[in-house]
């Protein structure tokens, strides 16, 4: 082989990719096309599939930066995407196994009791599967799993419904309706993956809100930050309960679940741990953070929307400020605003009183 052979060989080798790049640069096609292939590394329902296209066409990304960035995404996809794929396959497989387990359980019970009673025979104590696992099984079409969920959460649903309804007949209707709605949602492949109880209770709450909207009751105007005058006024207790409910509803799902189990049902972290698929220590830490979150949300729920940009900015962070969890510069700004704004100072005073009661 001579030097000129090598040169020609080298030239041919280089010609193909170089002309491809020139072609791509001229038409701006390559990054988009490549990315279309790369996102296939992610599971089908992963939001990152859309996210990456949003990034690619973002105005801040330069035309040539795109090429470098897309090649980086290849690496990212191989790591992050394939890991996410493995996790989601694991979840699906797990759900399949559960269904088998349930079907055999159900078949055994059916043999003894007859098919009609099979669902009721699965007592809550008899099933040690977490809600997450049961929900996956329901999505796969297992009614027995939904039966277990029903038994497990019926008591809580009735308890919550009793606050939202006037008669026991209404309460039973509401509970039955909520379970049916959630089942329908689950069968459509939507709905919660882990926090079944919270989802169920929110479903009931929404049903109440919707029926209230239909009856169009005129509510009187309520002045800002009016606080209860006396403790034994039933309206006051009611008002306080609504505020607490509002605060509770504004928390992230995970916090609501852990608070429900620790505060309402008074279960220990060790009891809750298997339900949430966490360690007992993890549950205790989560409950601690959730309680602080609830305190802040509860305080914040005492404040209504206000006019004026500076007042809005202050009021939206007032609860955090009172619990000392806002960044220092923001805290300084809020203090400054309070010094100059009488309205906000009054709101802060109100909040301080509520805060004191929380301790």
């Amino acid at each position, binding site marked *: 082989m001579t030097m000129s052979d090598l040169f020609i060989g080298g030239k041919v080798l280089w010609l193909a990719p170089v002309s491809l790049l020139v072609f791509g640069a001229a038409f701006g096609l390559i990054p988009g096309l490549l990315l279309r292939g790369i996102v296939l590394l992610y599971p089908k329902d992963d939001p990152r599939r859309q996210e990456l296209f*949003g990034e690619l*066409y973002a105005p801040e990304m330069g035309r040539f930066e795109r090429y470098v*960035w897309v090649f980086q995404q290849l690496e*990212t996809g191989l790591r992050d995407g394939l890991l996410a794929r493995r996790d989601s396959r694991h979840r699906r497989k797990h759900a399949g196994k559960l269904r088998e387990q349930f079907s055999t359980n159900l078949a055994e019970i059916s043999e003894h009791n007859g098919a009609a009673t099979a669902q009721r025979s699965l007592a809550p104590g008899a099933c040690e599967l977490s809600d997450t696992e049961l929900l996956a099984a329901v999505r796969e079409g297992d009614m027995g799993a939904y039966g277990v969920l029903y038994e497990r959460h019926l008591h809580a649903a009735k308890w919550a419904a009793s606050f939202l309804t006037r008669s026991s007949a209404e309460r039973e209707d509401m509970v039955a309706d909520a379970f049916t709605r959630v089942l329908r949602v689950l069968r459509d492949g939507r709905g919660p993956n882990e926090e079944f109880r919270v989802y169920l209770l929110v479903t009931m709450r929404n049903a109440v809100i919707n029926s209230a909207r239909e009856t169009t009751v005129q509510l009187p105007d309520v002045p800002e930050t009016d606080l209860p005058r006396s403790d034994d006024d039933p309206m006051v207790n009611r008002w306080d309960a609504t505020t607490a409910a509002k605060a509770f509803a504004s928390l992230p799902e995970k916090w609501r679940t852990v608070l429900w189990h620790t505060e309402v049902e008074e279960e220990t972290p060790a009891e809750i741990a298997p339900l949430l698929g966490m360690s007992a220590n993890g549950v205790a830490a989560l409950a601690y953070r959730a309680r602080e979150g609830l305190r802040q949300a509860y305080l914040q729920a005492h404040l209504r929307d206000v006019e004026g940009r500076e007042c809005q900015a202050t009021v939206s962070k007032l609860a955090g400020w009172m619990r000392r*969890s806002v960044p220092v510069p923001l805290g300084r700004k809020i203090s400054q605003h309070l010094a100059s704004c009488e309205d906000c100072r009054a709101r802060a005073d109100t909040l301080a009183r509520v805060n004191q009661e929380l301790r």
Partner: protein
Amino acid sequence: MRKTQALIQVAVALMADPQGKHWGYNLTKRSGVRSGVLYPILRRLLDEHWISDGWEDPATAGGRPPRRYYQLTELGHQELRALLAIAGNEPRFQDIIPGWAR
């Protein structure tokens, strides 16, 4: 969450604008963490509820695909501040944590 160099860099980038919306690409640039490391970190932060995500309004995106943004939650803000305060005392992080974040 284990304190890695990359996590600290991402934390600093997020805390530089605790109220703001952060885009993935912008975060890689500001934190200096490449996307192959950044995205798994964001996934973990989302799982912990330390950040929340959302999508840009398609109306303001003007025809291009909407971007996904990440925002610190109150909890994440607290946790990351604590994390940076602790990491600020470790010599290996001296160079990457600016004074304001300690």
